[in-house]
């Protein structure tokens, strides 16, 4: 069961903080929903810098990031 982080409508750094919290909870994969390119890049950069694999899919005008170990 994937952990879901719904960060749509939130501005930075909140999407990053929520994702970090989910990572700390330790249950992968984590699915993060964001609705701006800024949040997408920030979450991706943080997760990749922490050594996780990130996959991005565009869903309509929003993005779903899947974070795996």
């Amino acid at each position, binding site marked *: 069961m994937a952990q879901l982080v719904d960060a*749509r409508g939130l501005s930075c750094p909140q999407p990053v903080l929520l994702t970090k919290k989910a990572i700390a909870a330790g249950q992968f994969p984590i699915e993060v929903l964001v609705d701006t*390119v800024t949040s997408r890049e920030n979450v991706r*950069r943080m997760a990749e810098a922490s050594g996780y694999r990130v996959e991005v899919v565009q869903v309509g005008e929003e993005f779903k990031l899947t974070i795996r170990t």
Partner: protein
Amino acid sequence: MSEKLTRFFASRWGIILAGAVIGILAPLLQKLGNPPNMGICVACFERDIAGALGLHRASTVQYLRPEIMGFVLGAMIATYLFGEFKARAGSAPIVRFFLGMFAMIGALAFLGCPWRALLRLAGGDLNAILGLAGLATGIAIGVWFLKSGYSLGRATRTYTAVGWIMPLFMLGLLLLRIFQPQFSKDGPIFFSQSGPGSLHAPLLISLVFGMVIGFLAQRTRFCTMGAIRDVILIRDFHLISGVGALLVVAFIMNLILGQVRFGFAGQPTAHSSHLWNFLGMTLAGLAFALAGGCPGRQLFLSGEGDGDAAIFVLGMIVGAGFSHNFTLAGSPDKVVEGAVQVGGLTPAGMVAVILSLIACIVIGFTMREKSAS
């Protein structure tokens, strides 16, 4: 191609490029006529706009600064070219308006936004060190609130026309700057005849430089507040490398252009009242952190359709009106018969900084999500 460019702008080199370009263009703008150590200052320039419109009557700081309009319009062009324009609004607008006012009261106590703090330092004004230390302190307090669950809530998608309001307002200001109408005898639009407001680069250069910066900063998400916040909050050095590039390049440019003079006393449009330089920027830093962006970033966001950032910008412009009408802004050091008279704040200005700080702290404490740990 567009995706490749997006990844470049999001990279370390992208943000360094944005900082370096600001570091080149700001000292050039000074050389071309903008005030000393004020090649670009978002707070000062919004204050000048407030003055030109007659929202305050401080006759030395009134001018419709095309750089500000360029920032918003350049950012808007960038978002449309890359298909990212997205109108959104509704995340506690009234709070953002007041945060904008408080931010401006703090910035004008110091006499500059974070960009100008960097540019002042790059010109040798050592008072900027106090300002930057205050800025970092304010942001650190903001980070503490963020960690304890502070949030202004979600914005929602809205009509595209909502996102167009700020760019159209800027276009209107630009037309007023071009045609310079006078609405009544001794009335607005006001343009300073002396002082910093009378010093400006040619219109077209200011506008184009502003648009170039707006474009690059939108693509790279350049933000001075975010830079310091990310270092404290998540040990992320991405944004701060852009801020570092700005400082280093601006210093080199100032050396080349002969615009460096080291010292505390008698620096251009600055005062050496250390405590209030520090506290003014502590206030500004906290307000920026609570609102999610430095004044520059708020302009770029309002160009990409963020109605909440636009409200913050309007709060800053109105705050500038209050700041000068109520004599809350810092007065620069003066040289009288060869002796430096230290400027600083009036008692009203000191009270305003303290009350605004308290208001920001109350906002931080009372707007935390219950579910947050």
